[in-house]
């Protein structure tokens, strides 16, 4: 027998632990009560429809229903993974998503910090409102603006390039530039709105900490580094992990409106590939399988992200 001898003492300790936990739970029963509406809701509206995932393993026929559709196992998943161009598309999706994470995410934080430095309240409020306006434009409009701005002969960007003596570039037809256009235009649209949550977090920092630091001789930069950023850290970690989870949802709508066959190589992402080839059109099983695939990857990303953040910074979502 290789198992370590289980002493009576250990058993008793386990039992005591469980009892202690139960007592703690009972003592705080009123807190658990607060959970009831939420849990009921989540079961009724989120868990109930999950039976739909079964269709990912069938050739689902919406009239036959789940019970009468034929089973095909992992056929759709292997079809997805072996479709021509899938890995290229996956790669583009990840590159663009991480590009956004590296570019736009810090920019939102920076924006919140700098806005915090503006003390004239009406100006601050005015700027805040102006900065989050682009979020409300739909991509149909913004894409139109981007296309106009990037036009090789008349677009404003190329006019500036020509002014400085450069050669005009057809940004939306150039594989070297397309991803940059996607990331920067997405940043234009979202950086202001994304800063809101950080602005809210900044209000939670005790102003007396700043006073103390000033008297201790800390400069502005040091104050930002040692008070502001640590004060926002838990929100930064949270938002970072959450964004990691949506890594496969790279801007399908945006790219659909901006891309064309000459930049499919770098710009085609999972969503646009699926839309364009129409492989899920009328094929609900395939669409569900892809959704399941994305869900698995997404949850894997946040679990991993959460774990890494826990080890690295001590903070995590759970």
């Amino acid at each position, binding site marked *: 027998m290789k198992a370590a001898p289980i002493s009576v003492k250990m058993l008793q300790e386990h039992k005591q632990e469980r009892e202690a*936990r139960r007592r*703690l*739970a009972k003592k*705080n029963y*009123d807190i658990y009560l*607060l*959970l009831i509406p*939420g849990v009921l*809701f*989540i079961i*009724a*509206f989120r868990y*109930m*429809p*999950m*039976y739909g*995932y079964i*269709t990912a393993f069938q050739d689902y026929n919406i009239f036959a229903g789940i019970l009468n559709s034929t089973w095909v196992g992992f056929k759709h998943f292997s079809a997805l993974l072996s479709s021509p161009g899938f890995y290229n598309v996956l790669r583009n999706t990840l590159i663009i998503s991480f590009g956004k994470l590296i570019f736009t995410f810090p920019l939102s934080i920076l*924006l919140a910090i700098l806005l915090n430095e*503006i003390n004239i309240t009406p100006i601050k*409020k005015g*700027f*805040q*409102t*102006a*900065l989050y*306006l*682009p*979020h*409300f*434009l739909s991509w149909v*409009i913004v894409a139109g*603006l981007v296309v106009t701005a990037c036009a090789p002969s*008349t677009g404003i960007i190329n006019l500036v390039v020509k002014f400085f003596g450069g050669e005009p570039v057809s940004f939306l037809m150039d594989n070297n530039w397309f991803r940059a256009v996607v990331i920067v235009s997405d940043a234009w649209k979202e950086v*202001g709105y994304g800063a*809101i*949550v950080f*602005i*809210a*977090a900044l*209000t*939670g*920092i*005790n102003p007396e900490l700043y*006073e*103390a630091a000033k*008297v201790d*001789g800390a*400069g*502005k*930069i040091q104050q930002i580094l040692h008070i502001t950023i640590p004060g926002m850290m*838990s*929100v930064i970690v*949270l938002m970072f992990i959450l964004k990691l989870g949506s890594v496969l949802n790279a801007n399908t709508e945006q790219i659909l409106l901006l891309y064309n066959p000459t930049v499919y190589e770098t710009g085609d992402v999972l969503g646009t590939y699926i839309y364009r080839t129409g492989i899920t059109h009328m094929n609900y099983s395939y*669409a569900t399988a892809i959704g399941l695939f994305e*869900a*698995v990857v997404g949850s894997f990303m*946040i679990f991993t992200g959460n774990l890494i953040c826990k080890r690295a910074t001590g903070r995590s*979502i*759970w």
Partner: protein
Amino acid sequence: MEQTSRHTGRPKNGKARKVHTLRIKKSLDEKIVSGISYLFITALVVVMLIPIMHVVSKAFSAEWAINTGSVGIFPVGFQVNSLLYIIQSKTFIMAFGNSMFATVVGTLCTLAVTAITAYPLSMRHLPYMKGILLIFVFTMYFTGGIIPTYLLYSMYGILDTRIVLILPGLINVYHMLIIKNFYEAIPESIIESAQLDGASSFRIFLRLVVPLSKPVYATITVFTSVILWNDYFGPMMYINNPNLKTLPLYLRDMIARANDTQALSMLLVEKNLSAESITAAAIVAATIPILLVYPFMQRHFVKGITVGSTKG
């Protein structure tokens, strides 16, 4: 905290010279950062505003100007017909009302339920809380398909009612995590002292946690109301009754109508409207109400947590 004398700037403990030099450095430092902030933000605001002004100008420009690309930041050939075309119909007013209702009621309900649910989940030390949290988080990525969800709502009998605009989105786990994060940042000492005073958990929540959480509630109010106001998929899928249509649906219809050049070019030509100006006018009509939410909420973005409120 070191005390400095107001008259001479010399600290009372005698380290005169050093503090004086540091003081100059500090104000320079502050000024530089302040200056950079203003510069950077102003530049950003200009970059944000100019394209928006261009879009809004198109809403008020004449067709020939738009067709020849002559519209810059200000309207050319000013006209309000596009906007009137959008808002003058009975259907617009109805859709507007429906959106208002769904947004206001939905935001209130969602905020209440999400804020309450986030509170227990912020108490990580309680048994089973982590597991329950994961139950919620799981649903962030795993959802049912379009058809199963539709069939389910059909079974619940909520299709084609006002409730279907509000109920299914009642808890947004993403937002709940943000609120939970905020709760966790509240100093334990405050809560513990209230607990020692014998307050029940709900009372602590209502009287202590809620007032302190105004910034995050304001944030989530903004997020939720924007999502509800702009929601296209929900009303599109689950509502058939044209009387319950919300604004995004109405606007999409108007834009599609304007782009339907085959059937209606005559109509548009008579009224001197172009599809693009109608689209732009639709955006103006849809966006202005929701833009007002954030400024209203801004006053709640105040410093709420202060040391020293540990008194019972």
